[in-house]
Structure formats: C-alpha cells, structure tokens
C-alpha cells in the first residue's frame, strides 16, 4: 500500500512543509518558486522598460509586482466574525500586504458542490464584495465550477492576488536587539472555528479576527523601517516565528506575559489542552522592527482599528540561534517547536 495524503498534510505545520519540499519543489525543480514566502516578488523591469521606451517615456523606474495565491476550505462556511468569502479576500490581501506590497487585484475561483443553497452563496459573495471594498482591491477575473454532491464541502474558493511592491522586506538585516510586535490578540480565528465544529460541548463568545490588514500595514510602512512581517495564519504565531528563525545565527525570545490573549481564547485552549500560540489568526500581523522604532510602531498600530491590542512580545536574541524560545510566566525558558500536524483535543 502506497503512502497516502492524510489530513495532517494540510495543517500548515511540519507535514505540509515536507510535502511541499518532497513532492512539489522536488519535481518543479528549476521552474519552481525561489522561496517559500507567502508571495513572489516579480521583477518585470525588462518588459516594462521596453514598453516605456516604445511610448517615449524615460526616467521612470519599473514597479515590482508581488503575486500570491491561496485556497480556502473552511468548515463551517459561515462563522462569527466572517465566512469563507471574508477569508478568501482577507487571506490573500494580507499575504500581499506582509510582503510589503499594496494589494490591487484579485482573481476569484470557486468550486461549488451541487446542493449548496444559492442564498448561502449570495451571502458569501456579498462578504467578498464588502471585504474587497474595505481592502481597496478589485476582483478582476474569475472562474466557476460545480462538482457532484458529496465531492466538495459546499464551496471551495481560490483567490490569487497581485500587488505593487511598496517596500521590500529585508529579513537579512535583522539583528539581535530588534523587537517583535504583534498587532493584537493571538489564536482567535483557530479557537473560534474549533468551538463551532459539530458537537462542541460549549457555547463561547469567540469570534474570528478575520480582517484585511493592508491599510494598517501601509501606515506602519510609511513611518517605520520594518524588516520583516508575516500574517500568522495556520500554525499560528509560534510556527510563523519558527519559519523566521530557522537556520539564522539569531533567535527570538518571547515574553509569555506580554503576548495578548483574549480571556475566551485562554479558557478554551486550557480546556482542550491546545496551545493558542499554534492557533490560526486571520487578522493579525507580526512585525520585526529596530529597537528604536518599537514604540513608534506601537503608537501607529494602536491608532488603527485592527491594531488596538498590539504589543511588543519579544526580542531578537543572539543567545538562541535558529530558535524561538518562550520566557514562561513561571520564569523558565521553553523552546517553541514547529507544529507537526493539526492539534488534537485531548481525552481528559
């Protein structure tokens, strides 16, 4: 019996990364992506210059484009704080924004399962329109397919996005002393969805944090020399920081007491034995900024609607090369590893 895909391959943790490396990257080889960032920076300089010369324009530098794509398969389709449509816009917009780009255009591909209520679809498309307006992006092309009942989960969405690079990230300039900032409470989206799964025994007031972050991020980029950003979706804050620190001569030291968590997320994660630092976010960004800019970054973030609970949560440190380490409430130090697979709620 050959090895088969299991759900854990889609968790965004180590299994997903190994699948991408061992199957996709291996076979794509020279035509594959150069990095496994959220988006690709496309240098269209040559073509652009040829065009502008032909039109008699000179002295104008070519813009760099950022291109990304993401697929959305969420259950339930609608949840407090959003739906699969909100996610499909915000997720792709945020992937562009954290690359330092101004998101402009989105494609919209939907795979519908026979039997989906048109009314449900309409609500989802309305959400897409609302979030696209909020983010200032246009849906410029799309595709619709329908599969037999039982062959899809109501609706699957893929959005690809294109943005113009405003300020390239420079992770190579990160050095010990730089500060780590998160734009608000962590783990909200993942925990909210978990509590909505069929049969979850508790009612909670958890809400997804799903939101487009491009406005907030552009405000920061305008005034602060941001070195690196990431929206910590699947795998959460800990996985995103592990991806940052892996193989680097420095690491990250997080202060557990400083990490913003809502009371509801705290309670639910304790109850299920799950760690909110590994739980998905859909409306949060992590920033690495020079120590001297941390205060100013916080000031700017706190003035935005998405960044009111932002906080400095840690420091880049030379003491833990390649690692993400948590200074726990108890005063001890614990290494935060990469999530292997989807976390499973425990027995007792």
């Amino acid at each position, binding site marked *: *019996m050959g090895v*088969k*895909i*299991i*759900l*854990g391959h889609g968790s965004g943790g*180590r*299994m997903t990364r*190994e699948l991408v490396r061992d199957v996709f990257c291996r076979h794509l080889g020279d035509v594959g992506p150069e990095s496994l960032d959220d988006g690709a920076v496309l240098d269209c300089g040559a073509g652009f210059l040829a065009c502008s010369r032909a039109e008699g324009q000179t002295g104008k530098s070519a813009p760099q484009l950022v291109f990304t794509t993401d697929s959305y398969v969420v259950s339930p389709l609608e949840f407090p704080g959003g739906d699969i449509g909100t996610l499909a816009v915000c997720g792709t917009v945020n992937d562009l924004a954290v690359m330092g780009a101004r998101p402009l255009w989105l494609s919209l591909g939907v795979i519908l399962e026979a039997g989906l209520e048109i009314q449900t679809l309409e609500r989802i498309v309305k959400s897409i329109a609302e979030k696209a307006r909020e983010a200032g992006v246009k849906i410029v092309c799309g595709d619709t397919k329908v599969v037999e009942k039982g062959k899809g989960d109501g609706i699957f969405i893929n959005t690809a996005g294109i943005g113009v690079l405003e300020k390239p990230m420079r992770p190579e300039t990160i050095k010990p002393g730089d500060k780590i900032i998160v734009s608000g409470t962590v783990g909200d989206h993942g925990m909210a969805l978990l509590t909505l799964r*069929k*049969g*979850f*025994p508790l009612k909670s007031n958890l809400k997804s944090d799903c939101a487009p972050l491009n406005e907030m991020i552009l405000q920061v980029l305008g005034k602060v020399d941001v070195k690196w950003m990431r929206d910590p979706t699947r795998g959460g804050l800990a996985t995103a920081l592990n991806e940052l620190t892996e193989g680097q001569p420095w690491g990250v030291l997080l202060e557990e007491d400083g990490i913003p968590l809502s009371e509801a997320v*705290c*309670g639910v994660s*304790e109850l299920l*034995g799950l760690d909110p630092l590994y739980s998905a976010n859909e409306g949060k960004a992590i920033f690495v900024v020079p120590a001297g800019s941390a205060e100013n970054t916080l000031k700017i973030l706190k003035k935005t609607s998405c960044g009111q609970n932002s906080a400095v949560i840690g420091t880049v440190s030379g003491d833990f090369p390649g690692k993400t380490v948590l200074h*726990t*409430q*108890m*005063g*001890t*130090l*614990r*290494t935060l*590893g990469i999530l*292997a*697979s989807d976390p*499973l*709620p*425990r*027995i*007792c």
Partner: protein
Amino acid sequence: MNLLNDFRNAKLARKLSAAIADAVGDRTFSIMEVCGGQTHTIYKYKLREMLPPNLRLVSGPGCPVCVTPIEYIDKAVFLGLEEGASIFTFGDLMRVPGTTMSLEKAVAEGADVQPVYSPFQSLEFAKANPCQQVVFLGIGFETTLPGIGLVILEAQKAGVENFSVLLSAKRVPPVLEALLSSGSAEIAGFITPGHVTSIIGTKAYDALCCTYNVPMVVGGFEPLDLLGAILDLVRELAGERSGNLNAYKRAVSWEGNVKAQRVIDEVFIEKDDELRGLGMIPKAGYGIREAFAQFDADRRFEIVTDSHEPKGCICGEILCGIKGPSDCPMFGKACTPDSPVGSCMVSAEGACNAAFLYKD
C-alpha cells in the same frame, strides 16, 4: 480567584521550589507523576529546572492512549474498514499506529472516523442514522468511564440498536500496585492523578500506602498544583511517612464522585486486563456487564486482527518508569509526532510526545 494565572504565579513557585530543595536536602528520591497531563505541565513549564537535581521525576503510565494495546487500534481499523461502521473517537487516538495503520490512515482508505468531544455525539449520530452501525471507541481511565457508562445507559433506555462501544478502560490503583509489587522502577512516592482521583477519591489509595509503605499525594495540572504536591510528597519522604495526601482539594475529595462511581458499577465490571507495555495486570481493566452485552462491540462483531508490537519500541519500559524517552534510540529520529512508532509519541499526555514537543 483566577484559576489559571493564580496557579502560575512565579513568585509563589520560587517559594515552593526553595521549600522543596530544603525538604529534600542531600537525599536522593525518585518520585512518579502518574498522569500524562501532569507530565505535560512539567515539560511545558520546565518545572524540572525548579527542582533539586537529586529529586528525580519519573513519568508514569497514566496516559490512556499510551496504555491502550495495539490490538485495540487494529480492532477499530477493522470495524471501520471491514465492517463499514462509523467510528467515533476522542481525538488523541487518531494518530496511534496500529499493526498495519492508524485510524487517520484508515480515513484515507475510506473509513468513516470522526473525532468527538463527548461519547453522546456518537449516540446522537446512531439515532439519526439507524441503518448504520456506530461504534464509540471507549478508552481511558476512571475519568472518562462514567461518561461512557451514561451513554450506554441512555442507548439502552432509548432502545438504540445500531450503537456499541469498543471498550478498553483501565483502573489506576491496580496499575500502581503492579508497579509497586514488581519493584523494578524503584519509585519512593507517587503524585496521583487529579482527574482520575476526582472520580475514585483518595480512598482508593489508602490500602496501597499502608501495604507498600509509600506516600501518595494527589496533584492537579497547573504549575503551582504540581509544585505543591511535590512539596507535600518530599516532606512525607523526608519524614519517612507514607501518608495519602491531597494537594488538589479544589477538585478532589476522599470519597470522590459517588454518583459517577455508581454509574461505573452499574455498567462495568472489573476484569484482569492488558496494558500496552505493562502486560496483563489483575483487575486493571473494566468490561461491559452482561446486562449491557448488546452494546459491547467485542460481542457484537466478529473482529479479526493479527496484531504485533513495533520492533525496537520501548514504550513499555517508559510507561513503567524504568526508562525515559531519551533512552530510546528511535526517539526524535524514526519516531516523531508526525510518524510515531510507539503510542507514547502520539498523545498529548504521552511522555515521548511531551519530551519531543518541549525539547530544547
């Protein structure tokens, strides 16, 4: 009082840590935290760093997923794939490797396996789908057993014919007795499991403390709960006493949860049982009583398995406290949470999983 943060107070923890070091002095003790949830807290908060090096903490067998025999997984896979039953399970069990595959892999082969939070979800499904055989995987120690018992009672009351439980339920006191009587792990005292003891009461350990002259203290799951229990335990050891103490009074009493005990007695019957790695232990398990035989998946189906343990796995010795995760040559190499060989690497309560997840 905040039940989370107040039990993680660093200042109080330092005080407890100093008192523990003081009580231990220059003696050497090995103590066992029985429950996997406690093991997890110890690793997660690096509590070993707060304890003197001559106080050795040994992880115990109190991880339901870890002690479930491999044959059980094979049976569940058989029911899902060969009998076409809908399988409902607590999440931890999904990734435990069976002889040929785990339940997670059985899903990729076409089995219907659904993780649930409560056994009642499986009964609801059975009621709504009367033509489909539904099997709940009832594993665990005394903590989960009352819930499983209630579902069986409800299934009988409602006359649900397509519902059964594949039971592998274990009892903590006989397992501790087996560890004590074998003497192989040389444990001087036990931190008994908080959740289990909330059901069975500390009275369940009275006889063990007397017979084996060993102190026991019930511990909770927050850092201060555990440090407090460790302090009580080392004070007993330092004073050469063998008290049966309670450091988790907000959840545990001497008599335990009498209602829950009644449900257990009504539906289940004690039996000699096999624990993975520990072998056959007298009275260590529960079976389903004759009056509820129709809800016993083992009786309902003719289950065929050909089970054998993975080669080279030392989960058994780890569960007995004889060896630690790092003593296993496969730890972190051939055996990781992504592709576990032994059960201790799977469950969040498994010692190997905690050691891997929180390694430096």
